[in-house]
């Protein structure tokens, strides 16, 4: 506590970005030193990470790169003392922050010097009002009221949220929430800042604003910063040092960011990072998807499977009167066509998916959808999905939700693959039909889940869950597949796996609609439909969208996520 004491007595000065008059934390930013560091969560046999040995000088920015499951988030938790002080498990080696040995220092003392921002803004905001939210951490640390009243608006100003104090936290956009989370930790004046994939759950404008915020913090050199991120083009320009982890949580490399780059593409790819296209030369990747019409289902390609006309959806009145989520949207999905639906948060993407699936009956307009017969031939009859019985709808429409966990219907991965099929087979048996049992383990193996057939779907990792939710649609693929943010939170390999599986499903003549924030997915699509405030503002080829996004500013939508002035 002796190191943290003086900071509490100091009067904080004005700290708008660019003015760097913040009183230095005691001793300034700390160094971070790890030696043979390892951690295994209790109940697991495999370590989350192991054998980490690196030394980060005070005031530098460390970028941690690694594939999903490489222990990056756990390392972030260790730096904040949550591991080993809050979460159970076994610790090896040493981790020192400045003079403090993390394993031997109480979480309370670590908490004075370390601030941690998590990936999902919705799971870290505690309070209903913005100013209460910033004050929460200060209250916990026993700050006197007068100092909090001075510090809260300062912290909000620092992240560009001046004047937001009285707003409800629920009314903020994703980017605003994440900047609020940054204000939360800055308020307590920590000297080590840890960010755990802070942009992974944001739309392009929110990501842009958050990266800008990180860049401003990095420029000020007043904190030591550890940034876990797999958007390399956004994060690498901010980094002084880079730590690369492999699948098993072992250290692949540690060194100055300047030494990592075009020369280290293979190493970076092994770490699951998104390597900028320009570095890879001509080697194509996501856009190598087969073109529609070349696939097996032949004659059905290009036929209309879903027809939505003049959709209007209103949400019931709140304080500002009713809210029109969709306004005159007309849309046709063709067999074998993959369409990306893009737009800022609140532009109506999710509402459109729900309306197309017949889960939200539109206030005006209609949706009609048809099924595909066994040979990929469309069934003639177009039906309103909201009026279909459950067993009829499953052949026409499938949906993968942002959180695949909510869609699981079985106790094991194997049963999950059989579930949709099983429902129909049960009915088929009543009619006397008896077909051989389908090869569910074969499907799982194709989806890279063969070893998990007997596991509970809830035990799988995020990427595995997403693949399993697609595997569940294979035995009886729906004519139209709707996906809500299918690559949310996935690293490059996870994303590529999802695209490969979508390619396989498309072979059946399926029409696919992806609501997405990720510009990197667009080249793998045939068509982009862009929404803004409930209306279609663009409908055309991905290349044309990326060249001229119908939003202002267009920068974030092109995937060039670094504000140019942010790169040092």
């Amino acid at each position, binding site marked *: 506590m002796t190191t943290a004491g003086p900071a509490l007595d100091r009067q904080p000065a004005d700290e708008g970005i660019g003015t760097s008059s913040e009183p230095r934390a005691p001793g300034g930013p700390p160094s971070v030193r790890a030696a043979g560091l390892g951690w295994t969560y209790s109940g697991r046999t495999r370590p989350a990470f192991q054998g980490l040995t690196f030394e980060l000088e005070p005031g530098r920015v460390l970028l941690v790169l690694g594939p999903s499951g490489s222990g990056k988030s756990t390392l972030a938790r260790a730096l*904040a003392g*949550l591991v080993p002080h*809050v*979460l159970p498990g076994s610790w090896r080696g040493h981790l020192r922050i400045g003079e403090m040995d993390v394993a031997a220092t109480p*979480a*309370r003392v670590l*908490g*004075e010097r370390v601030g941690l921002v*998590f990936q*999902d803004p*919705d*799971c*870290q905001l*505690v*309070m*209903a*009002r913005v*100013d*209460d939210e910033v*004050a*929460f*951490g*200060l*209250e*916990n*640390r*026993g*700050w*006197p*009221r007068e100092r*909090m009243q001075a510090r*809260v608006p300062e912290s909000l100003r620092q992240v560009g949220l001046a004047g937001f104090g009285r707003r409800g936290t*629920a009314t903020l956009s994703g980017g605003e929430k994440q900047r609020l989370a940054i204000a*939360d930790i800055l308020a*307590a004046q920590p000297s080590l800042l840890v960010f755990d994939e802070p942009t992974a759950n944001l739309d392009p404008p929110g990501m842009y604003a958050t990266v800008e915020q990180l860049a401003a913090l990095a420029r000020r050199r007043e904190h030591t910063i550890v940034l876990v991120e797999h958007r390399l083009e956004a994060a690498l320009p901010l980094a002084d040092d880079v730590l690369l982890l492999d699948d098993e949580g072992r250290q692949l490399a540690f060194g100055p960011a300047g030494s990592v780059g075009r020369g280290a593409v293979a190493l970076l790819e092994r770490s699951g990072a998104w390597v900028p296209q320009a570095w890879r030369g001509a080697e194509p990747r996501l856009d190598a998807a087969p073109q529609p019409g070349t696939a097996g289902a032949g004659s059905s390609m290009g036929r209309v499977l879903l027809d939505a006309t003049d959709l209007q959806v209103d949400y019931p009145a*709140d*304080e500002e009167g009713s809210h029109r989520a969709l306004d005159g949207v007309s849309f046709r999905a063709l067999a074998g066509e993959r369409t990306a639906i893009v737009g800022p948060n609140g532009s109506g993407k*999710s509402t459109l998916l*729900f309306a197309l*699936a017949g*889960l939200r009956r539109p206030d005006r307009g209609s949706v009609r959808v048809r099924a595909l017969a066994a040979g990929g031939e469309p069934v003639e009859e177009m039906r309103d999905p909201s009026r279909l*019985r*459950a067993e009829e*709808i*499953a*052949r026409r*429409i*499938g*949906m993968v*939700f942002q*959180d695949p*966990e*909510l*869609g699981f*219907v079985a106790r094991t991965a194997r049963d999950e693959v059989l*579930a*949709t099929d099983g429902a*129909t087979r049960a009915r088929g048996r009543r009619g006397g039909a008896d077909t051989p049992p389908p090869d569910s383990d074969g499907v799982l193996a194709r989806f890279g889940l063969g070893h998990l057939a007997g596991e509970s779907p*809830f035990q799988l990792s995020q990427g595995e869950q997403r693949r399993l939710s697609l595997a569940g649609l294979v035995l009886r693929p*729906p004519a139209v597949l709707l996906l809500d943010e299918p690559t949310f939170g996935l690293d490059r390999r996870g994303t590529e796996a999802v695209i490969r599986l979508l390619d396989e499903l498309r072979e059946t003549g399926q029409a696919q609609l992806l609501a997405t924030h990720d510009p990197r997915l667009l080249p793998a699509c045939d068509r982009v439909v862009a929404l803004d405030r409930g209306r279609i503002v663009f409908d055309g080829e991905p290349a044309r969208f990326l060249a001229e996004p119908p939003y202002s500013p267009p920068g974030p939508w092109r995937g060039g996520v670094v504000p140019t002035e942010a790169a040092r």
Partner: protein
Amino acid sequence: MSLLPAPLAPIRPAFLTRVTPVARLTAGMIWLVAAILTLDPAVPARLVVAACVALVLCSGLPLRRIPGRLAPLGLAILSLTVFSILLSGSNADRSIAAIVELGPMRITGPAVSAGLAVGLRVVVIGLTTLLVFGPSDPTRLADSLVQQWHAPDRFAYGTLAALRVAPFMAGDWATIAAARRLRGISPGGVTGRAREFGDRLMVMLVSSIRRAERLALAMDARGFDSGIRRTHFRELRVGWRDLLTVAVALAVAAAALALPR
């Protein structure tokens, strides 16, 4: 895609928005006790009038939206009142004159009075709840409970965090139902539906626990309940408004009980 309506919030500052939540809670409890003390429908009726006056004059709540918000309660009130009247024991008492007589069914004056008393009590509960919880957000109530009634931090702010997660749970429930419909799952029969309900609940439980764990971790990372004595950003001081509120609530309750019919 939240299913829960946003809580009613004051649209303008008013007397009750400046009263500390604990004082409003005390005043509300006084009325609730008064409403259940007698079987005389006049007492809750007077309290309903007083509550309406308070809502209009000093709650700052959007009045036009109150009837809509109380509508679900209205159904409960109506059925409670009707059944209390129909099932009252005094209907069977032949010495009391019936107001209505239809074949074997008789309704007597005391039955109507008892039924009205039951229904009006529920109206008092509904309106008082609005007056207690409407004029400030739940954070103020948690602050007030901790600062004035010395409730434990973990209880008060933990509940608050749970309240923040509740709308997500409503959204999750809708998503779970949607996902299962699209997977072709629609069991028939009572047992099938009961099992289906259990399965959905199970999925929601898993996802809620995950969410709660993440939120708890974020709270821990920000030093919650780490042994340091917590301070308070927003000061809640007992003022003349609090005393006045409780005094007026007492006076109104006493008058409602004591006034002759």
